[in-house]
């Protein structure tokens, strides 16, 4: 049976939440802010990863809220080294596991290797290490928690901060609109490395997120998943609106959910009629200073990007490569 193949992921899109694993790997008691979309994403991603994995995590919110000595929220074997080198640390883990397996020194099957980092740790300071790891073809999955700024250090702009957003280092003023640059497209950068699996995901679409993580893990070689993670503290949004905002990002076309398998694109969540970006921006204090004309500019830019993406999705999408395995998916087993 094809495990977590493309077809199955479609099937499970319609399944009920009770079928997802109950076991928690990112345990309660951590210090994330109320309504943190990033912590929600971590929780679901860790469920999808399952037990047999090792996680390397970059410095950033999710590391800091979860790992104050002598406590930890992580049930996985987990390592944090620094801010910009997580992909390199993961490269080392993956390499060592390969040798140790060859030498018969592993207890049990070779664990999956997952690296995690924020948008700053990924698209700015950690880009070189990530590029190196993707280029070398390590068998690992990199997951970027994109909350669109350096939240851990107090909401400074990153290259992933969207145009017009107010952050503490891109404040709007007489001479500035706030963030003056358009969001760096990490997904395109990952795709340009020719790696087999790249996807965007959101904890507001749990099934989509869950199966993308499974696919990424099952794909041999590097995989990259870019997760939009609503941050009420940094986005100046109501704490009970995080899931809603995640959906609006998709419904307005600001953050389309898609996957790129061996260079071929496919929307995984289709939006029949896009909403105006205004519906998304107006819920967030970081865009409060924008005038209607600014919002129109963002609307045009968003639509243009979306059109380009749709064009890419026109090309035939390959059958998801067979990931033959005798194991039953955890989903069916666990329930």
């Amino acid at each position: 049976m094809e495990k977590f193949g493309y077809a199955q992921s479609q099937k499970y899109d319609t399944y009920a939440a009770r079928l997802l694993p109950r076991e928690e790997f990112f345990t309660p008691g951590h210090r994330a802010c109320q309504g943190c979309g990033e912590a929600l994403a971590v929780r679901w991603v860790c469920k999808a990863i399952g037990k047999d994995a090792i996680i390397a995590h970059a410095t950033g919110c999710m590391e800091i809220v979860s790992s104050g000595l002598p406590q930890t929220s992580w049930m996985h074997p987990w390592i944090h080294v620094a801010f910009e080198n997580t992909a390199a640390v993961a490269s080392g883990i993956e390499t060592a596991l390969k040798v140790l397996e060859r030498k018969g020194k592993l207890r049990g099957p070779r664990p999956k290797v997952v690296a995690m980092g924020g948008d700053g740790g990924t698209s700015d300071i950690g880009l070189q290490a990530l590029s190196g790891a993707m280029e070398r073809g390590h068998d690992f999955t990199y997951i970027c928690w994109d909350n669109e700024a350096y939240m851990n250090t107090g909401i400074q702009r990153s290259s992933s901060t969207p145009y017009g957003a107010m952050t503490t280092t891109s404040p709007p003023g007489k001479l500035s609109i706030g963030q003056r640059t358009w969001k760096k497209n990490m997904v395109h950068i990952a795709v340009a490395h020719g790696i087999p699996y790249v996807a965007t995901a959101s904890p507001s679409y749990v099934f989509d997120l869950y199966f993308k993580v499974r696919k990424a893990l099952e794909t041999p070689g590097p995989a990259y998943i870019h997760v939009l993670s609503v941050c009420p503290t940094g986005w100046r949004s109501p704490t009970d609106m995080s899931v809603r905002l995640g959906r609006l990002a998709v419904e307005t076309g600001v953050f389309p959910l898609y996957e790129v398998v061996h260079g071929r694109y496919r929307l995984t969540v289709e939006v029949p009629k896009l909403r105006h970006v205004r519906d998304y921006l107006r819920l967030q204090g970081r865009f409060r200073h924008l005038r209607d004309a600014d919002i129109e500019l963002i609307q045009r830019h968003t639509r243009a990007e979306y059109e380009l993406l749709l064009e890419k999705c026109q090309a035939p999408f390959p059958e998801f490569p067979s990931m033959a395995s005798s194991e039953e998916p955890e989903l069916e087993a666990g329930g």
Partner: protein
Amino acid sequence: MAPKTAAARRLGMEVSIAVSHAVKLARAETIAAYPITPQTHIVEYLSTLVANGELDAEFINVESEHSAISTCIGMSAAGARTYTATSSQGLALMNEILYIASAMRFPIVMTVANRALSAPLSIWNDHSDIMGARDIGWIQMFVENGQEAFDHTIMAFRIAENHEVLLPVIVNLDGFILSHVVEALEMVDQDTVDQFLPPYVPRHRLDPNQPVTMGAFALPEIYPEVKMSHQMALAGSYHHILQVWEEWAEITGRRYRPLETYRSEGAKILLLTMGSLSEVAEIAVDELREQGEPVGLLKLRLWRPFPVEDLRRAVAGAELLIICDRALSLGGVGGPVMSEVRSVLYPLASRPATVGYIIGLGGRDVNPAAFKDMVARAREEARRPTAEFHLYGVRG
């Protein structure tokens, strides 16, 4: 000195290749490195050994030294015996992660082929690179020749992996002067090394069967205690280092000490050097001794942990200690070695006068005549000090 085992063979080879052989004999399992002159021959040769299947290891060509040491941390954390090598700018680029490697107690072994730091760019030898990494919390030692480079590379794994130690080790060897020179070396065979160095058994590793969190952060309530335990481990490694060196002496007949002495008995004037310049200084000492001058030499092998008591014992009876640094602490009170040596001597009731020279920066040659000249000048200087320290032989 005659080796005790019949296993030893003498072979002429470049020191970098000897170091690679030592890494192979140590059965390193994972290597991550980035090329930089003059470390390149080591990693090139290791790549070949791995490519030929002579060393059953994985060699990862990372995209920077920052990633080299980070990758090594991942390798070591997963439980593999791990090696890397670098130099100069590469070591400087690693700096941030070097502290983390030792604080998280990963027994990585690294060769540093010592080289000057930019600017101006210089590929030649001095100790600026490693002095910039003085406080990284690693065990650090200097070697004087190819044989020592070979021996200490193997011993470094044994020291690092001791569960009472669990600290990374740097073996410093002078770039070009050692790394690129061909020497006759006594090899040790695989069986002997296998007996001396059993397979690495990690105390903790990343393993889903026994999950641990590594690299958690610390609040002020706990940070100083963690640092204290690191300090205790590094200081405490001294005895384990001595034990390993002693065992090696029993196998090979080659005995190493934290502070080596050369004709220092009864010496009124002592030179203190590190690394390959020690052999040059020995020539000067011989010549001066022939002229009846009471001159001897101290060679600082172990740099971290600092052999405080060894030094205090070694200077007993000396009137003048001439400290030769190969790095400049810009704007400071002298070379880093001189500053530390003076601090070590300060509490002594009777101690020699000290004169500090900064020599051989950026590969500037230092010959035996220079050492003799330094001795002559230092006598004057000790009587009537003119400066805190001197850049020797530099045009003003």
